[in-house]
């Protein structure tokens, strides 16, 4: 069983937010829903200003608070490390969302069909990806894709529908700078393992003990100095 994880190279990231868009299109997420979010930071004062970027998918924590609090086991950890959301079981309590220290969960506040940017004739947008309807994993649960049903929670799935086919997640695949790397952390030859050996790594909010599966190299975590710029006004 592989142990999937992601490594993000902040030295390469240009903050272009293509990963956010790749995710949206691949996973068919509705308006104002960003499973991937790219922070842009400004630090220091003129003329010693620095600008830097930090993509933030779900951390697929090994010790995931969101999994612990889910009252019905709709949020669960798969053997390969993916933290999944069963959208057929979720009761929409949003407890996972308040429990997550990283702010990665999004809820379907209304009928997703009303939130695909431009009203489409048959509700779902013309680019809807049919793979998202399939059940995945040995447990055959429906855990892929966004905009499933009003009243259920969703978040980054590590693109389970692609990973199970042996493809990289959409954001990783499409990153123009190859700043995102995905693979089996147990395989010393996988791209993420190699990158982790090459550069010093850190994880976000290490202190809260969530044991994220997403590692960062290059630069450092945001500090008290990091002022977010270009925040996406993702309000519905």
């Amino acid at each position: 069983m592989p142990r999937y994880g992601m490594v993000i190279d902040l030295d390469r990231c240009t903050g272009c937010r293509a990963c956010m868009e790749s995710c949206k299109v691949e996973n068919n997420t509705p308006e104002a829903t960003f499973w991937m979010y790219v922070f842009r930071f400004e630090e220091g004062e003129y003329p010693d200003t620095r600008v830097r970027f930090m993509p933030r998918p779900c951390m697929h924590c090994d010790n995931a608070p969101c999994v612990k609090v889910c009252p019905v086991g709709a949020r669960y950890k798969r053997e390969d490390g993916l933290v999944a959301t069963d959208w057929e079981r979720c009761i929409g309590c949003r407890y996972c969302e308040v429990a997550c220290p990283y702010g990665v969960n999004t809820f379907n506040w209304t009928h997703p069909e009303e939130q695909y940017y431009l009203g489409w004739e048959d509700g779902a947008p013309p680019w809807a990806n049919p793979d998202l309807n399939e059940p995945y994993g040995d447990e055959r649960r429906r855990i892929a894709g966004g905009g499933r049903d009003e009243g259920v929670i969703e978040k980054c799935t590590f693109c389970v529908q692609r990973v199970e086919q042996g493809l990289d997640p959409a954001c990783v695949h499409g990153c123009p700078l190859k700043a995102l790397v995905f693979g089996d952390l147990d395989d010393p030859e996988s791209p993420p393992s190699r990158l982790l050996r090459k550069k010093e790594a850190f994880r976000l909010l290490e202190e809260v003990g969530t044991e994220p599966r997403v590692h960062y190299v290059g630069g450092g975590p945001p500090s008290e100095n990091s002022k977010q710029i270009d925040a996406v006004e993702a309000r519905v």
Partner: protein
Amino acid sequence: MAARLERLPFGVGHTSGRWKLWMAVLAAIAILGWYGWYLELSRGMIVTGLRNIGPMGGATWGMDVAFIVYFVGVSFAGITVAALVRLADVKALRPIARMAEALTVVSLVLTVFAIMYDLGQPLRGIVNLFRYARPQSPFFGTFTLVISGYLFASLVYLYLGGRRDAARCAEVPGRLQRFYQLWAAGYGDTREEQERRSRASFWLAIAIVPLLVVAHSTLGFVFGLQVGRPGWYSALQAPSFVLLAGVSGVGMLIVIAAVVRRTVAGTDRLDDGVFRWLGNALMILLLAYLYFMVVELLTSIYTGAEREREVTEALLSGRYAPIYWAAVALLVIPLAFLIMRYFRRGAGLTTLVASGVMVNLSAMAKRFLIVVPSQTHGTLLPYQPGSYTPTWVEWAEMAGLIAFGALLLAVFAKLFPIMPVEGSES
């Protein structure tokens, strides 16, 4: 066995025009609330002011959750009073035991409604919360287990405690006779039966105590165990939850008892003694709660990490400051009243009732302030500060629930003696 009842006591079975008018008003508000829920069901929770934490800059838990916590807190008082009557044999409380039990049942019913309002998939909730129950989730402790267990226990209480009165009421001919007969279920008021009843109540009371502690602590844990939300992660969370629950519950009991004494004939047994006891209890709880509040505040100001401070700042001087300081005032003013009362025995009921109302308003505000700011402010990753303003739907839903609760209590008082029938106390 006491003398046969001539007619039903405490105005049971008898409704005045004014009463009906009141009920109509309450029903209208309740229906407005349900209309709000209908909107939520048909259009989605987008009709609330709730939004996602993070890039969306919202709070995902809001009024609903604040009131869930509040209602559970109020229910606390009922079951505690009932337990005290059984365990500590507090005589002063006996006249209000049934009110307290009824309050418990009603506020738990409201809790269940509020939970349904808050679920994105309410019906799935009812099924899945049991079908896939996960005891590891604090939610399970609080809602699945405790609320159902709790509701069950208080219903049993109410039922057992009322059997004797039911038996007596069943003697009065009328439309309700069959109902009383059913309730009494052949209760004969023999010594043996009296003993059996009091034994059952005693053991139930003993069983309820741990349930009580679990309920209110897990309620605290729902928040207190969340490392991800600055301002929530605190060991003080559980005890202060219990204290505020006591404050709001006792306050509510005062209000209900006063209303009963004002509006129901033959309730002079609700004397100053009862109110003095309640007033003093409220005063002690308030003092303890304020102490906790100050300790929590000081720790978050002096030892709080950056993110914690952001939340504290939002509370003390930021976005939430008006609510925060209003909540503080609504605790401090009643405390002053209560202390005055303590020294000036026999003072009128007005200040006491006002205190009861004020601490309940404060409790609602405080629940809101526990739930919301830690989502909109101080997020551990540097998102922009968020905001949450409840929509009219949420206001209507909550007002509707409160009206519905009042309606249930008022109807109950017309169906069954709201106090033990004179002479039927053992």
